[in-house]
């Protein structure tokens, strides 16, 4: 059985269709993307004991539960950073299976924690164990997809990472459906829902790990000719993780991802409140707006990553930063002129570029560092996501609260936050425009980058 998970046993036989690899990757990403739907558990978890209403002093509080998501994202970054080399070594099948064991095991442990009302067990289950599954799962199909699609790396990685954005679209209604099914007079059904999700997701992810294959060393798509010279910042060499960490390009891309994510989180964390306070829409309508943003977050991942195959990665990020900064700058104006349609359109474009930033970065790394260690390098770069996930909301909330306590009106406090986001994107643009091709002295031997 153990041999089945070996990289050698997952090498594709002649005739294998490479178009089977994206659905295999989606099996993983659509499941682990459930983490974005964690907020559906918040309300029932704060009344886990009281059932119909929170019991003060006994039930958990919203800030206590907020740490579960933050911890999961933090561990995601750490697991992908430290597990990247291991994922490259063992191959996608074992990595995907390991991800399934950790992520689904974490859900089940968290479900037991909710049942026993032990918060530390929920932190351990969903945050730490589940977070490891998130990190390993997120990077596990990336380098395999890039090797199968040397002609369209943006499309390939965009398809997989689209799944991470789409995971919430399945996870949220499925969780609500299950909680509704399991809830009774004695409980909110969260525990049973988490355990059921753990089992369902394991089956789904296991199928993905069964389908995935790696190409043979000499495989290339029919008619594809690997570039023989570096062109449009696409390297013809390979850089290993240890060497990549010594290049300025790695840190510039770290800054690019960090700033793009921080600015995107500015939208995600404030959009619902903003649309309610600036336009007076109901909470139900605001929830619909957030749902619409989820679809654009997902769609932007495949759209922008695919476009980057034609426009180039640096140009794609330049569009994110320039267009994003303009839109952030205009959002307060759309509020002042009470144009709900323009406000919604601006946010949908911004959120599509937030998703696009995640999906385009693996192909950017492949262009600069080659394919040999791209999974590990991608894993290391995801620490930028962890940092932005923690620093972004904290900074944004702090700035907003500081202004309100100093007499700034709520609507104006949003405006200043939006202007700050625009400035962050300008800094991101500078980082992006500073990226140049990696110096050949960092290349390993003289191998070509593409298989």
């Amino acid at each position, binding site marked *: 059985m153990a041999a089945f998970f070996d990289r050698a046993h997952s090498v594709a036989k002649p005739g294998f269709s490479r*178009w089977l690899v994206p659905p295999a990757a989606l099996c993983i990403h659509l499941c682990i993307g459930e983490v974005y739907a964690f907020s559906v558990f918040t309300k029932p978890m704060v009344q886990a004991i009281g059932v119909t209403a929170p019991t003060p002093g006994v039930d958990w509080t919203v800030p206590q539960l907020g740490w579960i998501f933050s911890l999961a994202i933090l561990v995601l970054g750490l697991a992908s950073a430290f597990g990247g080399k291991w994922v490259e070594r063992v191959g996608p099948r074992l990595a995907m299976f390991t991800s399934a064991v950790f992520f689904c095991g974490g859900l089940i442990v968290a479900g037991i924690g909710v049942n026993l009302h032990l918060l530390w067990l929920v932190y351990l289950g969903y945050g730490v164990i589940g977070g490891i599954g998130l990190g390993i799962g997120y990077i596990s199909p990336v380098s395999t997809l890039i090797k199968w699609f040397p002609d369209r790396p943006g499309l390939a990685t965009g398809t997989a990472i689209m799944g991470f954005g789409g995971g919430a679209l399945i996870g949220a209604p499925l969780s609500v459906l299950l909680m509704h099914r399991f809830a009774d007079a004695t409980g909110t059904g969260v525990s049973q829902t988490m355990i059921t999700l753990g089992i369902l997701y394991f089956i789904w992810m296991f199928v993905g790990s069964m389908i995935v294959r790696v190409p043979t060393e000499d495989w290339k798509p029919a008619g594809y000719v690997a570039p023989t010279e570096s062109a449009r910042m696409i390297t013809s060499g390979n850089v290993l993780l240890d060497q990549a960490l010594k290049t300025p390009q790695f840190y510039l891309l770290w800054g690019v991802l960090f700033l793009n994510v921080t600015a995107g989180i500015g939208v995600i964390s404030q959009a619902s409140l903003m649309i309610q306070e600036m336009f007076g829409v109901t909470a139900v309508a605001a929830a619909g707006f957030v749902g619409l943003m989820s679809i654009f977050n997902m769609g932007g991942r495949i759209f922008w990553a695919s476009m980057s195959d034609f426009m180039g990665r640096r140009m794609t990020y330049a569009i994110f930063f320039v267009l994003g900064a303009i839109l952030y700058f205009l959002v307060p104006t759309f509020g002042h002129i009470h144009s709900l349609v323009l406000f919604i359109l601006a946010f949908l474009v911004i959120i599509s570029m937030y998703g696009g930033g995640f999906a385009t970065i693996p192909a950017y790394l492949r262009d600069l560092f080659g394919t040999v260690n791209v999974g590990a390098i991608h894993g290391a770069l995801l620490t930028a996501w962890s940092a932005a996930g923690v620093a972004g909301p904290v900074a944004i909330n702090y700035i907003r609260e500081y202004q309100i306590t100093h007499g700034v009106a709520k609507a104006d406090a949003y405006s200043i936050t939006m202007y700050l986001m625009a400035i962050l994107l300008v800094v991101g643009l500078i980082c992006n425009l500073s990226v140049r091709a990696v110096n050949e002295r960092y290349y390993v031997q003289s191998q070509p980058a593409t298989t």
Partner: protein
Amino acid sequence: MHQAEERSTAASSNTVMLFLAWLWVGIPLAWGVADTINNATKLFR
């Protein structure tokens, strides 16, 4: 002749696998997107 038959069988099983694999991920995703769009329409009511 025998090799041609084998290639044909392999190609058709590959097509079936492709179809099933995309259904496996496509159906839940389509359900999630439809549910989200249904909720999002409340924004415009």
